[in-house]
């Protein structure tokens, strides 16, 4: 990992922790962006952590660009020493794989896809060496994922699967982006999963849909009444496959306010995970059983 610093115009400092995606890069980026926040530097207006990088927006009328750059750089050594542990939460997100809505959208934009003869899941299964879509789906939901960035648009989470690099599911984006994606589509691009928080354009492959809203500016969804955005970096996600009947049931419960997302507080220790991924993941997922 080699940290690279740059200005983004006269109002941003951009810090790339690593060119490659890894949990180590994510943890360092989070440790450093937290350190910048805790330092309460006058003139900083936004701190945006990303997968393997972060950005600080500043007001150059309050702090000179070189001063902010030096302050951010001075926090790197401490971030290297920071414990790679965090208290976070694991969330179970129900997913209706191979649902009719993302299927309809896939067919509408088929000419923009690498393999116009099949579905996005067929293609993903094939290029990742699985026998069929069902096997791919199994790999997708059997191990948990880490929210490594929230952004692009309104509260959209990017997720990185907690498996070794050889087991990462990798799928390219559409050849040319779609102009439409159903709200709450579970998508995939590169090594990242995402949930489209709102309807709109998108280039990620579409695998399914969740009935669970994750962005609600109108504060109608009960569990989003404290704040309109559900996810934050560091959240851990376990996908739970559901069928149409369960999808309809959850949708009805969200409407009448009775749906409570399954969320449990957990501790995540990167060193322990690096030592024994399977056992660490199993323990994380067990926490959900007891909920």
């Amino acid at each position: 990992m080699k940290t690279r610093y740059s200005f983004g115009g006269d109002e941003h400092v951009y810090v790339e922790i690593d060119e490659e995606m890894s949990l180590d890069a994510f943890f360092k980026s989070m440790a450093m962006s937290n350190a910048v926040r805790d330092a309460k530097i006058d003139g900083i207006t936004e701190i945006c952590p990303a997968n393997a990088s972060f950005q600080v927006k500043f007001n150059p009328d309050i702090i000179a660009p070189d001063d902010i750059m030096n302050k951010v750089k001075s926090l790197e050594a401490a971030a290297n020493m920071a414990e790679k542990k965090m208290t976070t939460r694991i969330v179970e997100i129900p997913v209706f794989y191979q649902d009719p809505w993302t299927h309809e959208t896939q067919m509408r934009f088929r000419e923009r896809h690498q393999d116009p003869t099949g579905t996005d899941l067929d293609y993903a299964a094939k290029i990742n060496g699985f026998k069929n879509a069902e096997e791919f789906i199994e790999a997708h939901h059997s191990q948990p994922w880490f929210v490594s960035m929230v952004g692009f648009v309104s509260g959209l989470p990017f997720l990185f699967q907690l498996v070794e690099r050889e087991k990462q599911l990798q799928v390219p984006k559409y050849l040319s982006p779609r102009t439409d994606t159903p709200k709450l589509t579970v998508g995939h691009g590169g090594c990242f999963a995402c949930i489209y928080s709102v309807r709109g354009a998108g280039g990620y492959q579409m695998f399914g849909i969740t009935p669970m809203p994750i962005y609600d500016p109108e504060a109608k969804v009960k569990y989003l009444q404290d704040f309109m955005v559900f996810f934050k970096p560091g959240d851990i996600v376990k996908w739970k496959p559901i069928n149409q009947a369960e999808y309809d049931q959850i949708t009805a419960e969200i409407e009448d306010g009775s749906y409570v997302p399954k969320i449990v507080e957990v501790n995540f220790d990167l060193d322990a995970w690096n030592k024994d991924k399977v056992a660490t993941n199993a323990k994380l997922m067990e926490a959900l059983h007891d909920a």
Partner: protein
Amino acid sequence: MTLKIIKHGLSTSIQDLGRPGYFHLGIPMSGAMDRFALRTANMLVGNDEGAACLEAVFLGPEIEFEQDTCIAVTGGEMPIKIDGIVQETWSSFKVKKGQILSFGFLLKGARIYIAFAGGIDTPLDLGSRSTYPIGALGGINGRAIIAGDTIPLGDQSRAKSGLSIPPELRRLPNKPADLRVLPGLYWHRITEQTQDQFFMDDWKVAPEADRMGVRFKGGTEFNFVDREPPFGAGSDPSNIVDGCYSYGSIQVPAGKEPIILHRDAVSGGGYFTIGAVISADMDYIGQLQPHTPVKFIKVNMEQALEARKERQDMLTKIRTVLDE
């Protein structure tokens, strides 16, 4: 105090100075694309500089006043009419209940700002009235205005009229427009020859221009420095592991057509960026019409800060002139 929208033009939205502080959640600052024009329009009618106004692009709206008030229009050049009679731009004047505000054809620039005494008084979302339709925030129920809307105005007690911005302090981009760029971010990803060529080429504003970003075409396709694609980045040489985008940053998907992200920017993504347009020139971008010839000018940080200071001095001058 209300306004009744008879025609909404092409795309007219409520904007103020935006909602900074939520970019880490993918919610951009939004707000006026030409902040200078919004500030001056507000000053002319006696409002706080950040009061909410209407931003109209290319085509003006038609509005009926349901009460007496004062208004001012700044930004792009578009004839203003009250009951069909042409009024001064960059100036504040009184209007009466029942009168109709309409506009002639756009002559210069792209966006006009209509300030009303008291400011537009729609509900705040995350501290701002600015419309961000993707996230359904601000505006009227999270959307741009449409014919039939009724828009509330705030307290009229500080209303001013009869003020005017001296012509030398009104601001519009020249043709060809110069946009000053501070190279950085992933600048090292392109060859030295492409780095030079980018600033030599004549670019043109593409029709795909909105509040999220403005695309440019007509320049030479980029050459990239060779690399092994980093894990998670994607195979195209213009891909990176998804990171944050700076406001004003210039991404060049597949090395073909540069896109400058503006006030409704996506907060991040998987395309490399070659640097960013300096803060002093961001307002200009909001006034670019499609097909406008554009030159990118390379600057360093010192020049960027100097330009920023010049812009601030201009606003200070306007404040002084209007206070006299």
